[in-house]
C-alpha cells in the first residue's frame, strides 16, 4: 500500500503486512520476505476491530535488522576508544537479542575497580546509544560477581532459617535481585521478595508462611 519513494535510507525495504492478529501478520512477513522473525524488526501500524469485535485486523511494518545493530555497538566503541585514554580492546558478539561485549587489554583492571563501576558505566552508555540490550563483561567479572552474590544470599537465607528472623539486604538492581531470589529459593523453607519501588530495591529474606513485617 504505502509505496511512495522516500529518501530515507532503507525505505524501499519497509514492508507492510496484514493479519488477524500479530502472530499471523508476523507469519506473513516471514513467509513473504523469507527471513526469520528474529531477523527483522516490526512496528504496529494499525490495529482495528471489525464487525463488533468478531474479527480483527492488524497491520505491521517490517524492516530487516541489518547488521547495523551490532555494528552500532562496535562502531561506537571504536570511536570511543579513539578518544578514551585507556588501553582496551573488545570483542562484540550477538546472541539472541543481546549484544555481548567482552573487554580485554592492558587497562582492563581499571574496568573492574569499585565493583566494576566503569564496566557498568560503559554498559549503560552502550545500551543508550544503540537501543539494544548490551551486556558487557571482562575477566569473568559477571560470573565471579554472580557467584559471590549467590553465596552471600544463601548464607543469609541459612541464617534466617536458623534464627527465624527476617533479613533485609542492601539496595540492588534487577539483575542482582534476580540472582538473589533464585539463590534464596534453593534453601528449603525460605523465600524472598523485593521491597520498595524504583530501579533499586531491597530484598527481604524470610521463612515461608511467616510473612511478618
Amino acid at each position, binding site marked *: 500500500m504505502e509505496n511512495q519513494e522516500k529518501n530515507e535510507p532503507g525505505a524501499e525495504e519497509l514492508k507492510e503486512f496484514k493479519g488477524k492478529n500479530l502472530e499471523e501478520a508476523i507469519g506473513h512477513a516471514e513467509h513473504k520476505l523469507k527471513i526469520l522473525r528474529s531477523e527483522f524488526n516490526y512496528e504496529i501500524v494499525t490495529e482495528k476491530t471489525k464487525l463488533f469485535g468478531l474479527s480483527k485486523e492488524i497491520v505491521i511494518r517490517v524492516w530487516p535488522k541489518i547488521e547495523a545493530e551490532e555494528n552500532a555497538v562496535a562502531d*561506537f566503541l571504536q570511536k570511543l576508544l579513539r578518544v*578514551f*585514554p585507556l588501553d582496551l580492546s573488545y570483542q562484540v558478539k550477538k546472541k539472541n537479542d543481546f549484544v555481548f561485549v567482552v573487554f580485554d587489554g592492558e587497562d582492563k583492571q581499571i574496568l573492574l*575497580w569499585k565493583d566494576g563501576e566503569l564496566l557498568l558505566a560503559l554498559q549503560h*552508555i552502550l545500551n543508550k546509544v544503540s537501543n539494544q540490550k548490551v551486556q558487557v563483561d571482562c575477566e569473568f567479572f559477571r560470573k565471579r560477581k554472580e557467584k559471590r552474590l549467590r553465596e552471600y544470599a544463601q548464607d543469609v537465607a541459612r541464617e534466617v532459617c536458623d534464627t527465624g528472623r527476617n533479613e533485609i539486604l542492601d539496595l540492588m538492581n534487577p539483575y542482582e535481585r534476580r540472582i538473589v531470589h533464585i539463590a534464596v529459593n534453593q534453601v528449603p523453607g525460605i523465600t524472598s521478595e523485593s521491597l520498595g519501588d524504583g*530501579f533499586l530495591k531491597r530484598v527481604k529474606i524470610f521463612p515461608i508462611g511467616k510473612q511478618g513485617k
Partner: protein
Amino acid sequence: MKELVEMIAKALVDQPEKVVVSVLEGEQTTILELKVAPEDLGKVIGKQGRTARAMRILLGAAGMKLKRRYNLEIIEKG
C-alpha cells in the same frame, strides 16, 4: 577529554548538531561544560541521572590514567 564528552553526547541525543562542549582549564581540574538542545537534556542526564553519572565515571577513569581531574557540568539553560 572534550572529544570524549562530545562523542558520547552526540551518540545519545537526537540533535547532535546542537551538542557543544566547552573546556575550562583549571590548575588541577578541567571543567567540561556540556550543552545540548533542551529536548535532549533528559537523554544526557538519564533516569535518576544514571547517564550523566556513567559519563562522569568514564571521565573519572580517564582522569585517573591522565592524572588529572575532569568535572562534567551539564548546562541546563543557555
